[in-house]
Every structure is written in structure tokens, then in C-alpha cells.
């Protein structure tokens, strides 16, 4: 703090610079075209200093935490000496600063009297960047070259003049250029807002102070993070979780393994021991792994810590190259979101070992991506891309949230009525499903199902889901959630499908996806019987499951709990359990036949 003469003025500066990040985000959100951006809010904004160190990130997607510094570092390194006023940089190459191809970064250097003083940064998930599958998010691509247009760090504008070669190259390589170019314009507009407002800061405080204050904003976040981490216990904790498969090698589960070491004011997150990179497109860039590692830790830290470089100084993330957590060429990565969400679950598992009363059980495993795309009879392309996620694990103090976005992708669902006016399909069902949540003193959130009925002649259906084989774990006595499920034409053939799908479908095909249920927390026999009664009444738990899992006998005629029968049943279950209750449960506990009920 030595450099800061007036802490009050500094506080005012801090408010102002974070407001710029937020205002950039609002600009993208409100002017964007594609559903992915407008509803899923799959974008982020930030302001960085002249060297590319992130000072203020706008309110946006946790999965993008820390991705901007990584990308900006590449731009600064590559173009140093050749960065001038009116330049705008673009990139999406995951092997050169990017994350996966649909995420396009746009950076604008900001100048003051000829000197570079800051960068405005945006990243947006675009609805299509070409490649072999509409939406560019296939999970069954096996190398980056199949996934679409790969843009190394380049100038999209030079000295204020648009690089028309680049612009038209993008236009010709994406399926719906109106959307992609529209969304790029939204990113440019956000940078423009930052430019105007940053100039205002310079006018008010002068360059010298702005430089000092930007540094101090970073130091401030570092101090807050250190103070918060110092409060946590020292030690080493690890956790292992498995992804069903990569959609290519269907018999080979994929291991995620993390070790958290906490000592004094610092933490190290080490993914050594995780699976080698896989053929399917679920490999992660290091920056994506960092985002999910740090994002999970933030959930056990106080909420008022700003997101910037200061946080990353305190939390180190190790991920060996060539693994699914730090891929190398030619890995495919379009559907890497799946792995990111599961790294989040894995982090929560390790944190739950460290802090038993602070962390929830496993969520549904993150969002399921469904895309349906093709050409109509007039050969006009359409793409429907939808990410569904919906349920959290039970918490040490309350049930898991249901009908709620995953913690790592704060996205919104698209309106059914809008989908039906814009896309050749109907949604036939979008509702919670009973008896799929993990039982617990605090149960997991109930998952929902979504039925899509396709109404064009033909299309390619792409599905990226998981948690069919490895269920969402329960914690400290809580049962795991039920697995996810995919099926075709559930009211007719009801054909069960694997978790990852790429197939042709025709008119009238109905695809059903059911999310996995959230894991439970704590022994279900300790659940308040009134809560069980309410769940039965709300048809989220059947009377059978109330009896079998919770040991609660509900009288549905009077909507009361039969206390005697409940006590007897709970005693029988307790007596019938064999073995110790594990801290982490992947299957329901073993029981004697008599107690199975």
C-alpha cells in the first residue's frame, strides 16, 4: 500500500475500473445474435494493463477465468513492437493462446498520447466456426483439423482499418456468417466502450496514478486471496473421478485425478495422474484447467475478492502436457466443456475432504450439449445449439439446487416458444423427473428431462453428455445421483442411446435427454421427515423411494408421516447396513436382503 497516498481515491478507482469490465459485458449480452451468447452468456470481458496483466474481469463465465491473460500473453509476445493505435487482435487457436475454436478472443490495445496503457479484452463463444459439424462442437472429432477455422493471433484491424482478407475468410468459413459477424461486432462494440471509459479514467486520474492504481488493484486481490487462504487448514487432499468415455473408445473410462496442497497463504492444484489426452474432442487447454481449478477454490473463499491476476499469483495449477488437462497437438477439444465441468466436480470432491462442511456433493456433471443442424429444403442452413444443465449436489446445510445452472457455466435456458418459432423443432417436455436425485439428509437436486421433436426432413443430431456409467457422487452418507439417460422416440421404440451421439435423424424423430441427478449429502435416515413428506407430495420422491431410501412411511390419503412405521423402518435399514459408510459414495450402500425393503 506504500505507493497509495489516498486509499479513498484508490477505492473510487477500483469501483470505476470494475464497472468498465461489467459495462463491456452488458454490451455484448445485449447486442449479441446467437442463442449461445445471449442465453448461455458464454462470453467474458476484461481490462488488462499495458503488459497484458488482467486488472479487472467483468461479470461473466467462470470457465473463462484466467483464459484472457493466457491469450493476451501470446499476443503481446508475438506482436511486441508492432502494436499500434487502432489495432484489434483476434485469435482462437487453442494451441496458440486460445481455448477451443468456437471461443474467439478480440483484444484492443488502448493508447494515451502514443503510449500503450492498457488492453480491452473479450472472449465469446460463437455459434459456428466451420468444421465438419454444424455448431463446431462435435465430441467425436479426433484432431483439431476437423473442428473448424483455426485463427492464430492476427490483426483484425490495423491502424483502424479492417483486415478485409481476414473478415471475408471468416465469413466464407462459417455456416451462418450473419450470426458470427454480428457477434464479432458485439465484441468490437464492447472494446469500444472500454476505450471511451478508460480514456475518462485517464482524464480524471492521470496516467501515472492509473498505472499505480492498476498495479494496486492486482495487489489488493492478492492480499484478499492470501488472507482467505491463510484461514484454511494446511495439508494435502486428493480426489479421483471418471468420465464415462470419450465417445470414440467406448470401453475406456477417463481418469481425472487432482491433488490440492495448501500451505500457509498458498495453494497448489496438481492434475498429475489424470488420463493421457484422448482421441475424442474433450481435451483441455491449460488455461481451461486453470479456470476450473481456481473457480472451484473461489467457491470456498469470501465472495468479495475481485477476479484478476492477483488471485492467480496465489493459486498455482500444475497440469502435465499431453494429458486431458493440458493437451498438445493434434488433440481435438471442441467439446472440452464436459471435462471442465468434471474437473470442477473433482475439485469439489477434494475440497470436501479438506472442508467437510463447506462443499456440496456432485452436480449432474455439467451441461449436456445438444445440437441439431442441417439444411432445409431450400438448402438454407439452420443450427440449433442448446446446453442443458440443471442440478446441484446436496449441501452440508441444504438440499442441492434444482433447475439451476452449473456453478461453472452460469447460463440460461432458451425459451421453448422462441425455439419453436426459430427452429424446425418442438420441445415436448421440459420438467423435473422423480426419484433420480441422490438421497441424503440434504438430497441432491432433481434433474429435468427435455424432449426434442425434429420437424425438418433430415439433420445431424450431436449430443455430448456423460455420467451414464459413473454417477454423481454423494458425500458423507449421501447417496449418489441416478445416471443420465438418452433415448430415441421414447413413446415408441424407446431406443437407449450412448452418452455421446453423432447421427442422422429424420422428420418426427424425438430425442429425449434426462440429466443425471445431483448427489446427496449426509445420511438420508437423518433427513427431516417433513421434508420427505413434502418431496412425496411434490412428486419428486415416490412413496416407495421414501420408504426404501429414507425409511419414511408417508400416508398419501392424509399427507402425514406414520411416525411409528418410520422409526421401525429406519432402525431396520440401520441394522441392515453392512460395512462402514464411505465419505464418498458412488453406489448406494450395501444392505442385507432383509433391509432392502
Amino acid at each position, binding site marked *: 500500500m506504500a505507493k497509495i497516498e489516498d486509499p479513498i481515491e484508490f*477505492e473510487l478507482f477500483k469501483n470505476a475500473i470494475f*464497472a468498465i469490465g461489467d459495462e463491456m459485458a452488458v*454490451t455484448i449480452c445485449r447486442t449479441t445474435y446467437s442463442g449461445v451468447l445471449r442465453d448461455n452468456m458464454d462470453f467474458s470481458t476484461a481490462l488488462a494493463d499495458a503488459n497484458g496483466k488482467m486488472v479487472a474481469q467483468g461479470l461473466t463465465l467462470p470457465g473463462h477465468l484466467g483464459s484472457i491473460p493466457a491469450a493476451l500473453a501470446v499476443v503481446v509476445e508475438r506482436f511486441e513492437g508492432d502494436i499500434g493505435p487502432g489495432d484489434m487482435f483476434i485469435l482462437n487457436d487453442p494451441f496458440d493462446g486460445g481455448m477451443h475454436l468456437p471461443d474467439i478472443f478480440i483484444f484492443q490495445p488502448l493508447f494515451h498520447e502514443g503510449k500503450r496503457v492498457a488492453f480491452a479484452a473479450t472472449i465469446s463463444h460463437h455459434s459456428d466456426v466451420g468444421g465438419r459439424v454444424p455448431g463446431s462442437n462435435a465430441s467425436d472429432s479426433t484432431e483439431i483439423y476437423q473442428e473448424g477455422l483455426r485463427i492464430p493471433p492476427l490483426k483484425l484491424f490495423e491502424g483502424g482499418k479492417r483486415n478485409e482478407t481476414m473478415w471475408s475468410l471468416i465469413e466464407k468459413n462459417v455456416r451462418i456468417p450473419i450470426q458470427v459477424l454480428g457477434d464479432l461486432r458485439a465484441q468490437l*462494440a464492447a472494446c469500444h466502450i472500454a476505450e471511451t471509459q478508460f480514456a475518462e479514467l485517464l482524464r480524471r486520474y492521470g496516467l501515472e496514478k492509473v498505472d499505480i492504481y492498476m498495479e494496486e488493484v492486482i495487489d489488493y486481490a492478492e492480499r*484478499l486471496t492470501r488472507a482467505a487462504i491463510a484461514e484454511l487448514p494446511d495439508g494435502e487432499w486428493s480426489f479421483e473421478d471418471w468420465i464415462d468415455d470419450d465417445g470414440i473408445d467406448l470401453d475406456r473410462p477417463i481418469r481425472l485425478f487432482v491433488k490440492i496442497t495448501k500451505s500457509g497463504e498458498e495453494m497448489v492444484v496438481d492434475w498429475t495422474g489424470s488420463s493421457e489426452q484422448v482421441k475424442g474432442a474433450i481435451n483441455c487447454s491449460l488455461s481451461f484447467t486453470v479456470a476450473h481449478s481456481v473457480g472451484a477454490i473461489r467457491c470456498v473463499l469470501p465472495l468479495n475478492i475481485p477476479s484478476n491476476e492477483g488471485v492467480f499469483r496465489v493459486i498455482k495449477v500444475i497440469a502435465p502436457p499431453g494429458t486431458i488437462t493440458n493437451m498438445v497437438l493434434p488433440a481435438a477439444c471442441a467439446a472440452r466443456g464436459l471435462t471442465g465441468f468434471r474437473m470442477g466436480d473433482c475439485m469439489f470432491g477434494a475440497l470436501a475432504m479438506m472442508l467437510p462442511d463447506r462443499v456440496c456433493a456432485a452436480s449432474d456433471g455439467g451441461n449436456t450439449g445438444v445440437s441439431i443442424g442441417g439444411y432445409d429444403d431450400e438448402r438454407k442452413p439452420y443450427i440449433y445449439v442448446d446446453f442443458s444443465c440443471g442440478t446441484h449436489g446436496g449441501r452440508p446445510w441444504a438440499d442441492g439446487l434444482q*433447475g439451476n445452472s452449473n*456453478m461453472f457455466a452460469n447460463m440460461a435456458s432458451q425459451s421453448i416458444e422462441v425455439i*419453436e418459432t426459430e427452429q424446425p423443432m*418442438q420441445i415436448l417436455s421440459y*420438467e423435473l423427473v422423480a426419484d433420480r436425485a441422490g438421497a441424503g439428509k440434504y438430497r441432491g437436486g432433481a434433474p429435468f428431462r427435455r424432449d426434442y421433436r425434429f420437424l425438418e426432413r433430415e439433420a445431424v443430431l450431436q449430443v455430448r453428455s456423460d455420467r451414464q456409467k459413473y454417477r454423481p457422487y454423494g458425500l458423507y452418507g449421501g447417496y449418489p445421483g441416478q445416471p443420465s439417460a438418452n433415448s430415441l422416440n421414447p413413446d415408441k421404440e424407446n431406443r437407449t442411446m450412448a452418452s455421446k451421439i453423432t447421427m442422422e435423424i429424420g422428420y418426427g424423430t424425438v430425442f429425449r435427454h434426462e440429466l443425471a441427478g445431483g448427489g446427496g449429502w449426509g445420511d438420508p435416515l437423518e433427513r427431516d421427515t417433513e421434508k420427505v413428506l413434502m418431496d412425496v407430495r411434490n412428486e419428486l420422491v415416490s412413496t416407495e423411494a421414501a420408504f426404501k431410501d429414507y425409511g419414511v412411511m408417508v400416508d398419501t390419503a392424509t399427507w402425514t408421516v406414520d411416525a411409528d412405521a418410520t422409526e421401525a423402518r429406519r432402525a431396520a435399514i440401520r441394522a441392515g447396513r453392512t460395512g462402514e459408510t464411505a465419505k464418498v459414495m458412488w453406489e448406494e450402500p450395501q444392505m442385507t436382503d432383509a433391509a432392502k425393503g
Partner: protein
Amino acid sequence: MAKFRVGADIGGTFTDLVLLGHDGTLHTKKVPSTVGAYEVAIVEGLSSVFDSAGLQPDQIEEVLHGTTVASNAILEHKGARTGLITTKGFRDVLEIRTLRMPRLYDLHWEKPPPLAPRYLRLDVDERINNKGGVDKALDLDEVERVVQRLLDEKVETIAVCLINSYANDSHERAIKGVIERMAPDLLHCISADVLPEILEYQRTSTTVINAYVMPIVSNYLQQLSARLGAAKIDAPLLLMQSNGGLINAAVAERKPANIIESGPAGGVVGAQALARKLDLPDIITFDMGGTTAKASLVEDGEFTRSLDYQVGGGIMIGSRLMSGAGYHLKIPAIDLAEVGAGGGSLVWIDAGGSMQIGPESAGAMPGPVCYGMGGEEPTVTDANVILGYLNPDFLVGGELELQADKSSEVFQEKVANRMGLDLAHAAYGAHQIVISNMIRAIRAISSERGRDPRDYALFAFGGNGPLFAAGMAKALDMRRIVVPPFPGLFSSFGLLYADVEHHYSRSMMQVLRDAEPSALNDIWGGLEAEARAQLTADGYRPEQIDIRRTANMHYKGQIYELSVPAPDGDFDPDKVAELEERFGVEHERTYGHRAGPEEPVMLVNAQLIGRAIPDHPPVPDRLKVMDSRTGTQSSTRQAYFGPELGWLEAKVLARTDLASTNLGGEQTGPIIVEEYDATCLVPPGATAKQDDFGNIIIELPE
């Protein structure tokens, strides 16, 4: 005998009453709210004004009312037991919402419980498609079974919202018929009547909210009418809507969703009217009380409306992005941005050594430390006492003695020492930081919409607004501030300026350039007929009826709509093109860019406002204030204005001292204007005067 109009505004703590005569005679009264039976405070407060001013009940010709009864029912979950009937497969639209969470990294966040629990949400096996065709017909026997189940569950009200009913409402109307047949006295509503617009979650939520507050609002308005009647006040009762227009009590009972944000609307309406008189077409209103600060924009003499908002979303920065905290209402409302900053906001130091303010508030109890009612945590009001801005001895009305020493003691220990600052600098810092927090509210309604605050005057009211207005204006480079008379009662005073207004809308959801002009005529014509019928029933003559059309549009593929005025009269291809052009212009203005002419524009909703123009201007230019309280004696006080200027001697004046005939008129700061209901701060270098309408006009130096 002179006739009076009454503005009555209920807040959580106080009920504010303003009585205005045709000749400009004005009486005001602030009485404690009577929670649980709010009508009691209104009628008793009026009776006491009658007594002291020698008025008769029959002199009252109109009672205009702003109330938080409906929003409180939602915030406190005290609405009616509500059943919902929906389409099979979509029972959980209300609960799943949009999936989004309002907060990142917060495992403790709880989703607001649905206003209709799952076991009272029942579905029927029917389906309408997006073109309005019937894919699966409604089975009336099934409807009867479902309604009977809800009746057996003893619901007090039923909401009906089916998928795609915006395109064809016949199934909803059939269900309504069954409810009316089976339970003629049960309150109920269908989405086709409440909000015939696309977006199933927003429509369901709005319809359920309407049903949920219907019995409470209906009961309250009947009680109020009865009590007014018993007090021989036989005048029409009109309610302020969230959109800034008035409706009569009977309509409000049917569509209570329209009066949810009734409370803060009055101030904005009043500010708009006063600003027009002052020939200030562009103002930003700033309303700061004890716990929250609200800002809104008046542009070209018109306040702006947002298309939807969340009730009970809590107060947070960035709420426009991080939606999901409250209950969604897709009803036009005056566009207010709110932050949790007020006189009671707590001042604290975080782990990184930074001073933070709010959002926690000391509230009315225990209140700031200086109130001496048990408050131990420093607040913004304590900072203002330390700075000399607030009278150190008592709040200006004289009813509350202050303990300034205690403020200093606590502030020194908990803030100044920990930051290594002297007391005055620390308190000044708190004052400045509150300002920087509140700026976010103003940015949300101005620069986030492409408007530059420097082009606007700041119109400040609320108990704390006039105290912070100059600091806000300075931070935003705004030059002129207007502080109206009775700033602390301004929300009720503003009610007197409102007009009767009815809003209608219908979803179109089609590409504008492909629309048949005749279809557009049919839609807007139908809405206009509805508006004219309602206003005629309200007792207005045809020449008093003003009709305005607006269109909500976006580029095909976007989702956020922009609202632009639609042309009057019959549509032809030129007018359709003109409407499309208006959208492009507004998009460019708001977001700084527009798409090329090849990109189609979707017409999402046609909207129409029917407004009644009163025969006489509702408020005379000259007000005669009958409220005789001992004015503040002119004096001076030391006040602190930052490290550079330090402590200065500030003049302490009454508002009338700033009038042109008194003490030479325009004065230069530092000045502190003390009034019964608020304190106004004029910083060094700024000038202040009272204009002909009783406003304080503050000009800041370049």
C-alpha cells in the same frame, strides 16, 4: 369550497400524505405506517389534516395512491395459496425458470421458492403449436378433474398458462370457463388476459404473480374504499402502476401485477412533470432513502420504461446481467436501477484493507450510531454527522436528538484507526465511496444505454438524495441539480402529476418486412379499441383520449428487444419501412452499431398506451405551503470538504433564504439547507438559488 386532491404513498416505515388544492394550497403529513392494515394510517392521517387545516371530507375529489402492498406480499411470501394449470410436460417451467443464478461462486445462494408449489401445479394434456394450430385438443373432462383437485387442495386463486397460448388462447379461455362454472367466486386469471406475449417462463411467472397477489390486493383495496367511505371521503380511488400511469381501483383488482412497483413510481412521474415546467427535457432522477438509492432517466420529457424486471431480486450491482434472484414480471415498469446504499448503510473494512459500504444496513432499528438507539456499527449517516453536513444536535424536524460524539468515537475506532486516516478524512472517504457505489445505478440507466450523463440535469429527492446530489453530479460531470420542494415526501407529491393510463400488448413474432400492413392494422386497431373502451368506461370523453403505439423489436436472432414508437394511422409499405428504420436508429444509438439493411428485423410485440388527458393541468404552478413549522434560523457550521479544502464555515439556511427576494438570492457554497424532511448540501464553489416553483437549483462550476 376549494377542492383537494390527495397523494398517499405507503412506505415500510412512513405513510406520506400530500393534499393539494386547486389554488395551490398544499398540506403535508408524515405518519407511521400501520403494518397489516395500511389503510388505517391513510384515513387517520387524512382526518388529522382535516382537523388541523379545517377541511371537510367532501372537499377531497380524488385519492391517488402508491402502495407496496403487492410487492410486500411477494417479498414476504404472504400471497394467496395459488394453483397453476399448465401444459403437460411443462409443469416445472415456473420452477426451472431460466436456470441462471444471480451470483457466481456462491454455494449458499438459494433459489426463491416458486409462488405455486409443485403439488399445486397441475398439467392438462393439450398442445398448441407456434402457429396457433391445435396439435392436441383440450379434454374438458380432464380440465374438470384438474380444477377439482385444486379446489380440494383449497387454493385461493388459480393461474392458467399454456404453452404457445400467445398464438391461440382458446384453450386457456376454455379452462377459464370451467373454473368460472365450478367455482364462480374463486379469483383466477389466464395468461392471455394478463400478458398475451411470447416467452413461456416470463408469461407464466407474470400470470402466477398476478394470481398470487390478487386476493390480497383486492381485499386491501376494498378495505381502503370502505374506510374512506366511512370517513365520508367519497372520492374516486386511483392506483399508481409500475409504468407511471394511474388506474382505477377496480382495474387494479383485476390486474394487480400492474401495481407491483407502484411505490417508487410517483417520484419519477413528479420529477418528469416538474422538469418539463423548468424546460429541462433531459434529467436523471436520483432518489436516495435510508437503505436504497434509485436512479431513472427522463429523456425528451418522457421517463423510460423497461420491458420487464424482477421483484425481490435483492439489490445488487450488475443485476442487469446476473438475473435470476427475484420473481420475473414481464410488465412495463419505469426503468429504475437500484443499489443498496442509503443513510443506514454500514461502513466496514475488508480483509484487503479497503473501505466498503453496505449492502448491509442498520435499518430503522437500531439505526445509525448517532440515533442512540443501540446502533454500534458506523453508518453513512454517522459519516455525514462527523463531516458537519447533518445538524449535530437533532434531525431537522427536531423530533430526534442526535449523539454526534458517539458517531465520532465509533467511526474513529472502527474505520479511521484501521485505515490510518484522520477522522474527517475517513468520514469524507465514506461519503465519496457511497457516491461511487451509487454511480453504478446512474450508469446502468445512462451510459449502459448509450446515454451520456453529462447531457442531463440531476433531479434529487428522497430523505438523503439532496445531501449526496452534488457529489454525484460532480463525479459524473453533471452541471445542474434540481431539488424539488418536500424532497422527503416527493414520492407522494409526484402522484398528483400522474395521468390515467392503460397499457396493452400482443405478440407478433414475425419478420417486419414480411408483415401485411393489414395485419398490423388489425393488431394495433384491436388494442386501440380495447384502450378506448376502457377509458370511456373510466369516464373520459373521446377528445381526452391519447393513443400511443410502440413496437418491441430486435434483429432476427437477437433476444433483447428495443422499444420504439410505431407510426399512427393505417400502415402501408412506407410506414413499415419507416418502423424498421426507427429500430435501426435506436439500435445504433443504444449500442453504437447497427446491422446492414439485409438483416431482417423481428416485430416481437405490438404495444399500445391509452392515456387520458385531464381537463386542467393537475398541479398549479404556484404552491402555497400551509405547513407552518419553525424555519431554521440562519447560522453557520463547520463542515469538511476533503483533504484539499479541509474544514470550511458553511452557511446553514432555509430553502426560502435562497429565493431571489431574500438575502440577495443566489448564494455560493458551502451551504447547508436544512428542512423538515431532508438536508441539502451545496459544496464550495457551487451556487444555489430557489426558482419560482420552489425548487432549489444548484449549479456546479466547470
